[in-house]
């Protein structure tokens, strides 16, 4: 009998391990099938509870392919993704569903990642309908309110549709949608790149607060080194589908230390620790 898929016990800080992951796209014709593109080659990394791992690299280097592999939107050609001591590649429907409750991917373009025909309330309740169908009406509502509060999402937006919200508001909806199912890992695939600096700072602070409150593990995919330095505890560089072993450390490699703040014109530390301060966005 299969046991329920659970993350490793909290004594083990590593929540998800990727080992020698490769992804190859095949060019298929009725007569032959040959490898056309190698998107990922022998990628290995660990995601740690309550920590952020930044993955930086130029466009087309395979960062998003890795993100899609981690949530099993793409089936890797080789390698392992270990979660709860088990390889999640090839999981059957029930276990796959459990795994997908625990790991969520947040896209760069939140406008196109939300169903245009649904209200925000419907968008946020979808994960609950799937992952916790037995939840009572009252509990569903409480979870919805809680996710909205955590994502600093105003309740007046619940009746609106995605095209009636700004980019920053939509990204908060995407975060709230992920939080409502209480995940353990968030993959942030260029999640801040399409936002203006002010909104970036709001969302970045929000992500850091959520991490400290729920010990979430983040894989922060970006090409913005400044934002990587701000948010991440460790960083990996990627090029042509491979993790660069000889990548220069951009900042402290100690994953148990807090992220190192960056000092730019628009940022400064506050008394509680590292925060990003900018003028509030007009959209928020």
């Amino acid at each position, binding site marked *: 009998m299969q046991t329920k898929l659970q993350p490793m016990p909290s004594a083990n800080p590593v929540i998800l391990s990727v080992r020698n992951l490769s992804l190859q796209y095949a060019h*298929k014709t009725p007569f032959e099938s040959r490898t056309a593109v190698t998107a990922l080659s022998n990628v290995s990394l660990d995601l740690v509870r309550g920590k952020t791992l930044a993955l930086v690299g130029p466009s087309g280097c395979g960062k998003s392919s890795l993100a899609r592999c981690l*949530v099993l*939107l793409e089936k890797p050609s080789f390698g392992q993704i270990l979660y709860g001591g088990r390889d999640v590649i090839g999981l059957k*429907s029930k276990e*796959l*569903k459990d795994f*997908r*409750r625990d790991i*969520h*991917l947040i*896209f760069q*373009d939140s406008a*196109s*990642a*939300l*169903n*245009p*025909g649904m209200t925000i309330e419907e968008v946020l309740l*979808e*994960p609950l309908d*799937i*992952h916790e169908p037995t939840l009572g009406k009252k509990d569903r509502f409480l979870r919805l309110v809680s996710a909205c509060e955590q994502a600093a999402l105003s309740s007046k937006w619940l009746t609106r*549709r995605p*095209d*009636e919200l700004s980019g920053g508001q939509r990204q908060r909806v*995407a975060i709230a*949608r*992920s939080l409502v*199912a209480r995940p353990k890992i968030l993959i942030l695939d260029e999640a801040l790149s399409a936002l203006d600096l002010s909104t970036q700072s709001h969302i970045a602070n929000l992500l850091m607060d959520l991490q400290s409150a729920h010990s979430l593990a983040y894989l922060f995919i970006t090409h913005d080194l400044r934002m990587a330095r701000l948010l991440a505890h460790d960083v990996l560089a990627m090029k042509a589908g491979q993790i660069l072993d000889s990548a220069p450390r951009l900042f402290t490699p100690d994953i148990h230390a807090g992220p190192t703040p960056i000092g730019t014109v628009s940022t400064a530390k506050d008394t509680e620790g590292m925060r990003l301060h900018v003028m509030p966005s007009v959209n928020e």
Partner: protein
Amino acid sequence: MRQLAWRLGQSILLLVGVSLCSFVLLSAAPGNFFDELKLNPQISSATVSALQAQYGANRPLPERYARWVASIVRGDWGYSLSYHSPVGGLVWQRARNTLLLTTFAVLLAWMVALPWGIAEALHKGGWIDRTGEVILALLLAMPDVLLALLLLLLAARTGWFPTGGMSSTDAAELSAAAKAWDLARHLFLPATALALTTMPILARHVRSAMVGVLDAPFLTAARGHGIPKFRLLSRYALPVALNSLISLFGFSVGSLLSISLLVEIILSWPGLGPLVVEAVLARDIYVVVAATMFSAACLIVGNLLADVLLYCTDPRIRPVHS
């Protein structure tokens, strides 16, 4: 509601335009009903002139149009010279049969095209998609006449279905259920012929709309959240793909009427088709104009229906009230 009233107003204007154009063009065509009479040696020219005066055929075009509009108000829609009866009743009797046929054909075509297109989109590039596309291409390449003749041949050889008409000779003696079954058997052949002519176009549109939606990022995101396949299809992909399909539905309602004319003639369905052909050959102008108006009205109603459906299914096109 205001939008609906605006669209209705536009539709009435469009119908007036169609009536004017068809009336003027048919009047401008060489020859008329009375020219045919003049060729008959048994009818004197004096009789023909008297008939022309009686029916106002020698009056100027604007006056004839005005008299025709007045007859519409009375419900006559002009007078058929070859059938010796008001056009309204004559056309409506046949139009009902055509409407019955096209309604069934539209339903049949969509019932096949929807699952066909969805199945192809879900298996894009696979053998289901490829086989489906080959069959659709064959059906598209086949002329409507040939398709109707093949079905006629099938019915004649097997005897499974009646080869013409819309009821058996002993239909009057049958019970209500038996009558309905008899009608369904008569309807099957022309409805299938009609559905097969439009289904390939609809199925290709459904496939294309679904492929576009299935590749959309919001669907990938939903899949990443663990939403099951059936729910993805029913709650995410179909409602979004429905927009372009509803517009196509409106168009298919109107276009089926024009295609049905040919099928009705070949499969002897007592609809508008045979009546219009006879009227055109006899230069019975009012019957042709009324049939054209009916066809235009169907197209307009189809599009109006599509607009209302779109309004109901897609909240994004509704006006935002602050």
